């Protein structure tokens, strides 16, 4: 039985309706910065976003081309596997549906890849149909490098390690292959509502 430290509360954890908080999570007002490596700093004139792999012709956008695409404001709850959840976060980004518009592919999986070598894998259907964005804005401001700026993947219905920071593209794949954390014990799919944190959950 772990001893309780009298009077310790940690940071304030606002009450939230149970149907907004997945099992095992604590709600926070902060936006913790978690990272597996140093913050990359790719100059914006060298930044590109690429879709390659199982696609007739890979497609790529420069930053200016990417920012010229239609974008939207999204408000979502986000859930980190380290147990914090943040409700009603405001983002601005380009829907992955827009990026995949007109793409013919038999691929069922994507591997998102980022500056610094980070990868994460997802089923294609989990980044399409209005479920995912490449986000460049947070809280009405350009996305901070600490939080993945200039752009990160945003897939709020899965644990937030799937929302790859510093994303540079998606590789369409016929077969699934684990990304960085998925190789090291984290669940291949990562549904917070089924508490799929680790292999076998």
């Amino acid at each position, binding site marked *: 039985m*772990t*001893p*309780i*430290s*009298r*009077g*310790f*509360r*940690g*940071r304030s*954890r606002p009450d939230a309706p149970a149907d907004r908080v997945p099992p095992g999570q*604590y709600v926070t007002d902060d936006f913790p910065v978690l990272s597996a490596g140093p913050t990359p700093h790719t100059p914006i004139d060298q930044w590109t976003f690429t879709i390659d792999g199982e696609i007739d012709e890979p497609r790529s956008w420069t930053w200016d081309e990417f920012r010229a695409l239609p974008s939207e404001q999204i408000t979502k709850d986000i859930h980190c596997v380290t147990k914090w959840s943040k409700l009603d976060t405001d983002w601005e980004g380009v829907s992955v549906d827009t990026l995949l518009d007109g793409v013919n592919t038999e691929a069922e999986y994507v591997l998102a890849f980022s500056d610094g070598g980070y990868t994460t894998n997802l089923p294609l259907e989990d980044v399409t149909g209005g479920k995912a964005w490449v986000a460049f804005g947070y809280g009405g401001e350009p996305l901070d490098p600490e939080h993945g700026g200039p752009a990160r993947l945003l897939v709020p219905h899965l644990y937030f390690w799937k929302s790859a920071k510093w994303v540079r593209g998606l590789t369409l794949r016929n077969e699934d292959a684990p990304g960085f954390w998925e190789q090291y014990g984290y669940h291949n799919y990562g549904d917070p509502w089924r508490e799929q944190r680790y292999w076998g959950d």
Partner: protein
Amino acid sequence: MAGAAVLGRLAPLKWRVASLAELVDETPHARTLVLDVEGWEGHRAGQHVDVRLTAEDGYQAERSYSIASGPDDGKLELTVELIEDGEVSPYLVDELHHGDTFELRGPIGGWFAWDPAEGGPLLLVGGGSGVVPLRSMLRARPADVPARLIYSARTLEDVIYRDELEALGDDVVLTLTREQRDGIRSGRVDADLLREAGFAPAQEPRIFVCGPTPFVEAVASELVELGHPPERVKTERFGPTGR
């Protein structure tokens, strides 16, 4: 018998219950916690402990703190600096009452530790709360081991262990980075200060540098540029939130 040197196998680290015996104010922003810890077996100068707090709803937070007391002091002390919007330090510095308990494990760390048997001279360079493990080393030091402490603090008010360090006279060089005070040097720890106040490479000092990450990196690379072999410069980086 083939060389069967005994490897330094470590006992598994278990979480122990620590209770607060005494509180000592060091500065307006730092306090030393004197602790009773069940089963505590002692430590080497420079080592740290992990502290774990559990709230009533099960929420847990863990932090690491360098051990401030010397190995022969007979008690375990941690010096905690209050971090403005921190999660754990406000609790430890402002909320903890005598007899309150939390979990602690240690001692931890083999790299950033010094035993008197290793000898000196000892060159210790600390930034802010980086002075904490260095003070443990000073307390462990026998009289015949020369030592110098170069300590960078923001203001005079932020200097921890001021009386104890003043008693060491010229062995301690203090510099203030955000304040000018008569009789005390100001400015960062730079190559000039290290050359002037530290031991020369020819004296083969054992060097320990501790503090915020950017401080440690700047000082360590200056020391190497001054000619100290990198393997004699041991570093411990505290994150931006300090420890």
